[in-house]
């Protein structure tokens, strides 16, 4: 009789800030915990009091109409609001044992663990395909050619770009099509081997065929990285996500979390009538 494999929760990892050894959560366990997260710009709330857990190895979708604060919330998770002077984030965001907004947490290190893909493909225009792919690694001080090459190949394969790009790695990124450019951006984010990947409407600037390829990609990637994706498209959320967070603009124009749960349940038997209305396309 075969011994069952022990659960994978024993992978050691070092907390950059404290030097303490962490445990890697196994699939299904919370990797990011949002507790009462509020984002405000110049004193006005954009998102208020959001609490939910993001589970390791899953795809979490943030859905909701325009203005419900999906993107604002997403950008709070890797401290992208740091660059906006008037922005402030309260509440707690935790990545494993790391408090994202603790004073001792270095934003650059955090972002190497929580990657991001944006709405529009934004490859660096002066860099080649290869240079784009390893840019994040170089930013993080990786200089070993072997590691760069290995990570680049792995990321390009994972982003389904390796077959078409392997012979022209030195070509400029601008020679790629829009869909390919977005996959290059995904590869660029993956090459750093982040634990969480944030995707902000990654297909909104792409045609349906390129969208389909990215969606397939997202499904394959969840074995490698936990994904949080913002999408306008409910069919997309239904197709790709395991869990869904539904946000809606409240009376004071701040986004609120209406419902959070497994995607299947949220779309078939939501507890909140507003969720039911939204997923059935009655508004938004």
């Amino acid at each position: 009789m075969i011994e069952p494999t022990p659960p994978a929760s024993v992978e050691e990892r070092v907390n950059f800030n404290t030097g303490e050894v962490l445990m890697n959560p196994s699939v299904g366990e919370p990797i990011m915990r949002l507790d009462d997260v509020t984002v405000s710009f110049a004193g006005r709330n954009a998102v208020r009091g959001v609490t939910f857990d993001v589970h390791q190895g899953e795809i979490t979708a943030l859905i909701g109409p325009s203005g419900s604060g999906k993107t604002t919330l997403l950008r709070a998770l890797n401290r992208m609001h740091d660059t906006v002077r008037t922005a402030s984030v309260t509440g707690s965001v935790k990545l494993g044992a790391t408090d994202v907004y603790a004073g001792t947490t270095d934003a650059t290190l955090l972002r190497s663990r929580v990657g991001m893909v944006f709405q529009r493909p934004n490859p660096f225009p002066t860099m080649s395909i290869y240079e784009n792919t390893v840019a994040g690694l170089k930013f993080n001080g990786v200089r070993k050619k072997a590691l760069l090459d290995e990570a680049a190949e792995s990321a390009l394969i994972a982003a389904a770009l390796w077959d078409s790009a392997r012979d022209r790695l030195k070509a400029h990124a601008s020679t790629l099509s829009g869909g390919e450019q977005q996959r290059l951006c995904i590869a660029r984010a993956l090459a750093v081997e982040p634990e969480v990947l944030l995707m902000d409407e990654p297909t909104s600037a792409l045609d349906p065929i390129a969208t389909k390829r990215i969606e397939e990609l997202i499904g394959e990637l969840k074995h490698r990285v936990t994904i949080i994706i913002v999408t306008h498209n409910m069919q997309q959320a239904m197709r790709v996500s395991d869990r869904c967070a539904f946000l809606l603009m409240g009376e004071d124009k701040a986004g609120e979390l209406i419902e959070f749960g497994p995607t299947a349940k949220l779309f078939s038997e939501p507890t909140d009538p507003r969720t039911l209305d939204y997923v059935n396309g009655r508004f938004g």
Partner: protein
Amino acid sequence: MMTTLTFDAPADPILERRRRIQSVASASLRRRKNYSRVAIGVCWVFLAVAIVPLIGVVAYVVIKGLPAWNADFFTQVTEPEGIPGGGVWNAIVGTAVIGAIATAVAVPVGLLCGLFLAESDGRIAGAIRFTADVMTGVPSITIGIFGYIAIVKNTGHYSGLAGAFAIGIIMLPVIMRAGETAIRGVPFHLNEAALALGARRATVARRVVVPAAMPGIITGVLLAVARGLGETAPLLLTIFGNQYLQWNPTKPMEALPLVIYNYSSQPYADLVQVAWGAALLLMVVVLVLSIGSRVLAAVLQREKR
């Protein structure tokens, strides 16, 4: 246990690579932070180097010029050495009249040229654009000579108009290029939206593009005016200077830059004092124009929303 397989650590190359990358990232953090600090420090040093002379000039002019300011300074005409009192009223009038005429001519011409440049990419536009760029770099004394030959020689006497002509030529390329830049900054989809409604090109420009570009245009125009008011060399050869109050631009006139130029080289303390006062006044005028252009642009920007 199937779901946990990919996370069964030791054999997983991705987890292994993640561990390596993260350890490099955290190990190099101190080096990267230090590098960042050094780079930012260098920026601060150079900023200080750049800003010390700027502040120095402003502070020196204020300290030297302020004692010259009194009621007479703004209301009386310049007096020769030895006669107490006297001001720069004649120079203020001259600068205002010359500046107004130059602006009134250069702004419409410059902006229409700018609109043309923004709307066309042909060979003619390219040549004009290139000429304008060269013109902004031409030493202003050259423009002064041109004004002297074109106006002073032909009319037979120095005049405020000749000065306005020279100053207008100085301002023209600046307004052209500023206008072009502001108009080009308007997103093309606004053009398309108007065209798709059946608007003519001129209508698109007048009703959609130019209004949207207005904050940039105003900023550019006021900066060009500020630039023109400060020019000395073109005036030297065209308006001659005038100790007496003169409102008529067909006659020789006085101007603030001219007062600064002529009086600062005099061996008499009270005349040098007047030059400092005029320098401060000119600086304040330019400052007010610059701040005014920003405020106006900000107000227009807000109204657009």
